């Protein structure tokens, strides 16, 4: 899976979560700091679950502490996916 596809899917996941929260989805951009969106702990837990299911990888909240934007998540997912390919 290439980075653009991952990014597109991640944007979709975040926009869907924003819709649930009645947050303006136009706010959701790849470089926006996630902490500024107004997601709470449950939103993050649900986003993580969706990302894990979409890309078959594990994201811990410890990782999320270092992740600031959707672009960062895309980098993280790329790294996880490629390390899985190497291991298998």
């Amino acid at each position, binding site marked *: 899976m290439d980075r653009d596809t991952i990014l597109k899917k991640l944007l979709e996941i975040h926009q869907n979560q924003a819709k649930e929260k009645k947050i303006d989805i136009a706010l959701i951009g790849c470089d926006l700091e996630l902490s500024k969106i107004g997601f709470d702990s449950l939103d993050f*837990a649900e986003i993580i679950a969706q990302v894990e299911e979409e890309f078959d990888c594990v994201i811990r909240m410890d990782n999320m502490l270092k992740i600031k934007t959707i672009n960062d998540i895309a980098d993280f997912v790329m790294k996880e996916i490629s390390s899985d390919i190497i291991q298998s």
Partner: protein
Amino acid sequence: MMDVTGATLWDLLEYSASERGDKPAFLFPSQSVSASYVELRDQAAGAAKGLMAAGLKNGEHVALWAPNRPDSLAIEFGCAAIGTPLVMLNSDYRILELEYALQQTDVAALLIADHNGSSNDYVEVIARLCPELLVKPPGEWSSEKFPKLRCVVGLGEKRLPGMLMWSELIERADTIGESAFQERKQGVSPHDTAFILFTSGTTGEPKGAMISHANYLVNTAAMARELVFDQSDRLCLPLPFFHAYCLCMVMLAVYFGAACVVYERFNANQILQSIETGSTVLCGTPTMFVGWLEALRNARSEGAILRMAVTAGASCPAEMVNSILEKTSIKEIWNLLGMTETLLVSGNRIDCSQATEFISVGKPLIRVEAQIESITGEEELPPGENGELLVRSPGNMLGYYGKTEATSKAIDARGWYHSGDMAFRDLKGNISIVGRIKEVIIRGGENIFPREIEEYLLTHPKVKEAQVVGIPSEYYGEEPVAFVILHQEETATQLELKKYCRERIALFKVPVYIYFVESFPKTASGKIQKFKLQEQAAMILNKKKEE
């Protein structure tokens, strides 16, 4: 201050309404809702009368399954007024946990929100557990699974044919006269159960701890001698109401006539909003403070009036305390020790940098006794020696509902509650918690009992054996991971089992990693060595970090 002797929780609210009438009791910033003490008392009276009109009798259990709401406090005090113990259900529960909790507690009425987040639809869950709600109107159905349940009330907008809505219940409040309400309140004893709070306890399976009015009030008055608020204080409370810690803070705020700033759930940006609403005291678990640190630093430069932090629920790292004191406007931190079964036990006021590894939780509150006993239970240990912490206190619960045996295991014949925490006392009598004897994972303040997850994993047709252990987490303190042995010739993926967990158990309990193994390390006698699994998990994680 109010004399709490012989009082009920309703008396506490009445006192605050009469003494601090127009002062704000709570604010719910995300919905721009607030209420004064008089308004809260009136809302609680409306809730109480509505429940009376729905036929709830003294002693019958009412359960609340909802994230924090503006009407949560009115429901809590309303139930206290009419002697209907309120079963506080974890808002993260999913179908399996809800079914268990309702069956354990003989609930007569269930109050439910529409949903919790996008993947936990409460109304859909109750329809699956109680399909009778789909076909018959209120009052005409009975539940096969929950024989005592006869009333399900929707707090949101969604409804099933068999449900009543909260607004309808409140409308019916007018049918209850003041004298009937007075008579009902007088029938409530301070020693009656006010809340049933779920806990994993020391032995595993979740149990409903019965907490009386007197438990809460005497404990509140004892804490109030140490931790003092005034009527201008506003407590930022992003904690869930189903936690004993949150309810302790609420009672303390009402006792002093301070206001609670309530949030649906934790959000790292709450600090900024909370400062706008004038919060002076920030209450949270250590995990929450880690999430808030950056916002707190920024808030200082914007002239925040936050003066105090209160933390409980998990061990408090010195690094976090030092960061708060050095980099924020907060100059006083209270590190509290409390348990669902004992309420608040002790508190340590910290106002300078800490160099010790274990931050003490202070001396026991007045009328609270604590002792450190050897693991074998044979002797009381002297200062400096590690042993199990025992607590005897007016805050000790009445017992676990419907579980006499578990109660007598937890509270011995001399009245000591066996905490399962490993602790020591210094020469001045300060208690420090150093670990746990009982097998429990504390993830960001939520207790997770490994056996509960193991048993759930075993219900998956491919899983033959499962073991769950905790791994260190910078953010949560600990997180669960599972080791799984599959049945012969079966294959499964981590994702498959994680999805299976997410469908029916709370997200905070879902193991972060699932490792497939062919056997578990065992002792010569065949006992599984969980510490070796923990070491194994740590090794895999370290290797991953290095990559």
